[in-house]
């Protein structure tokens, strides 16, 4: 049983309140990913769970133990530090095996575990190097290696793959998932990579300024963001937002953008968002939902300012009225800056938010 439970936990550095009261329950064996803007308190949260930072107030429990004041070693967590924190005087092998050595594991077992970790991490050739003779990504892998040779109650990963190339990152992702499956350990994982968050998490926790904006499984987060912040934060490229008002236009609801464009709201959604009629709202639509040209979809005119061909598709960046807008167009579409194109909007995928509170409506 290694549920992690933070109850009304706060943290201040000096006078600065970094984490206002925070409640978070991570179920046993759950794989939770923390995401959030830089500086929002992800690392701090992880460090509080690990015991490296004393919570200013509140209670932290791991399993059925209150660990609020317990020292780190006794919490049985394993952590990959954002800045690696390798032992500079030890070789890669020693770095990885040190924890085991300290626990008195027989040398043969250590060697085996180290070799296995090195295999997983593609570090075999570097086992006898000191960290100073490694590249950034190699160091990061050593840091991962050090964590995964253990069988802790909780794994804490702080942006563990940020310095790895895409290919390796995918491999590592798979390995970490395998590890999770094999060891059945609770994992708290911080990342800025949305794909990572989406593919690995049982649940994604979106944080902002120390608060939890939404905690849900990846698809929910993507499809039903609770508020503007989450909607904007999740998804790359980011969701487009157009401010305007909802108005009745005959039978249907119509969204009137501030710039003059009008987009009809499909009937299925109309009832749900009716409450906001007349109020300033924000319409959100992801770039990927602007690509498929279904005849039933409304279209909006986009004046292109910049073009980003990504391979599978191309991004057309420009403005709709006063609002910045990024549209995804099929690769090979012939567009040029200053062209104005007509962008289809998948109106089933539209989101609406109250401008005043940022809360999603119509869900």
């Amino acid at each position: 049983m290694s549920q992690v439970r933070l109850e009304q936990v706060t943290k201040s550095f000096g006078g600065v309140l970094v984490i206002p009261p925070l409640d978070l329950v991570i179920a046993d064996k759950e794989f939770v990913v923390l995401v959030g803007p830089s500086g929002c308190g992800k690392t701090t949260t992880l460090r509080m769970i690990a015991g490296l930072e004393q919570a200013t107030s509140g209670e932290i429990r791991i399993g059925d133990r209150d660990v609020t004041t317990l020292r780190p070693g006794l919490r049985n967590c394993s952590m990959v530090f954002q800045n690696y924190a390798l032992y500079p005087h030890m070789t890669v092998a020693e770095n990885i095996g040190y924890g085991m050595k300290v626990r008195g594991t027989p040398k043969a077992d250590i060697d085996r575990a180290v070799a296995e970790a090195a295999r997983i991490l593609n570090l075999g050739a570097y086992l006898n190097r000191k960290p100073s003779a490694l590249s950034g990504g190699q160091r990061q892998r050593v840091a991962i290696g050090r964590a995964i040779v253990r069988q802790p109650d909780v794994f804490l990963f702080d942006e563990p793959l940020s310095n790895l190339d895409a290919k390796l990152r995918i491999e590592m992702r798979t390995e970490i998932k395998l590890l999770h499956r094999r060891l059945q350990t609770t994992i708290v994982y911080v990342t800025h990579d949305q794909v990572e968050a989406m593919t690995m998490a049982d649940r994604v926790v979106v944080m902002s300024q120390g608060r939890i904006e939404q905690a849900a499984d990846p698809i929910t987060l993507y499809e039903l963001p609770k508020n503007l912040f989450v909607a904007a934060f999740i998804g790359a490229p980011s969701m487009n937002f157009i401010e305007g008002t909802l108005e009745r236009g005959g039978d249907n609801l119509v969204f009137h953008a501030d710039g003059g464009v009008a987009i009809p709201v499909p009937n299925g959604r109309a009832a749900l968002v009716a409450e906001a009629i007349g109020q300033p709202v924000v319409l959100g639509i992801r770039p990927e939902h602007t690509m498929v040209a279904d005849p039933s979809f409304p279209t909006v005119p986009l004046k292109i300012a910049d073009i980003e061909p990504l391979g599978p598709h191309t991004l057309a960046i420009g403005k709709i009225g006063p609002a910045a807008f990024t549209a995804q167009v099929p690769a090979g579409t012939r567009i040029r800056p200053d062209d104005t194109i007509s962008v289809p909007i998948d109106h089933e995928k539209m989101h609406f938010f109250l401008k005043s509170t940022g809360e999603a409506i119509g869900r």
Partner: protein
Amino acid sequence: MSVRTLKGNGRWWALAGCLLWLAFTFFPLYWVAITSFKTPLGVVGGPTYIPFVDFQPSLSAWRELLSGERGQFYNTFIASTIIGLSASLIATAVGSMAAYALVRFTFRVKLLSALLFVVVAFGGYLICYNIFRIGQALSLIYAFLAALSLAVASSRLRLPGPVLGNNDIVFWFVSQRMFPPIVAAFALFLMYTEMGKIGLKLVDTYVGLTFAYIAFSLPIVIWLMRDFFEALPIEVEEAAMVDNVPSWRIFIGIVLPMSKPGLIATFMITLAFVWNEFLFALFLTHSKWQTLPILVAGQNSQRGDEWWAISAAALVAIIPMVIMAGILSRFMRSGLLLGAIK
């Protein structure tokens, strides 16, 4: 190659400066070296500079020294080596431990507890000794134990008044080094003799002298090592903490290796202090554990300065240190922390 390496002209200017300083440091030593091979006549006859060229070297000073004519050479040499190495090793170890604790842990000592310690120790001793007349040594032991236990016990109480923190403790340690050694050495001699009277022989024993050296080296070790520890990236220790590495292993296995340059420098300093210490050696020993500085100082006799003998003795006294320095300075390399953290 490293960014630190000087390049271009600066390199030669630095070299010139170093050579100048080398001349300044080496000339006297060179002078000592050649003087140790001079005959008395060669010395009093005015300065001569190059062996075989302007004077004929002779081994007489060395023969005298090594034959024991000028003091118990071998005894003192061995005693010095044993005491010097062990005292500075222990002092560096114990001092580093304390310095580490003072850097990484929070200490809070209530001023009242500290005062209580002083008052009970003083009062207890004076009362036991002057009123109950139970002997200096026993008075001291009783008073010390009483004061210590009362102070520790009282620190658990809720006492009012200011609280001393880590910095105050460090300053207290260093202040031990500020007290002039004259009276301290004599008082220590008295204490040791008194202890001898109750069966705990400390004067002229290995334990007695080494213990005193450790105590008097500790302040310096603590004060210096504190800064080296403070410069270490704490994240590395945190990594180990999360790994449930016990604190002492973090200290030995991670902190000490990372602060190797500082540790070695501090050890060298301590060794130099102990190796050359005079006053305590003078008072706390009288035959078996006499150390080299006494012998060296002895060459400055009432008959005047016998330069040749002084030179030979001084040389003998530094040779082991030179070897030590040679070995240790190899371990003082930069870039130790490279790659530890991003």
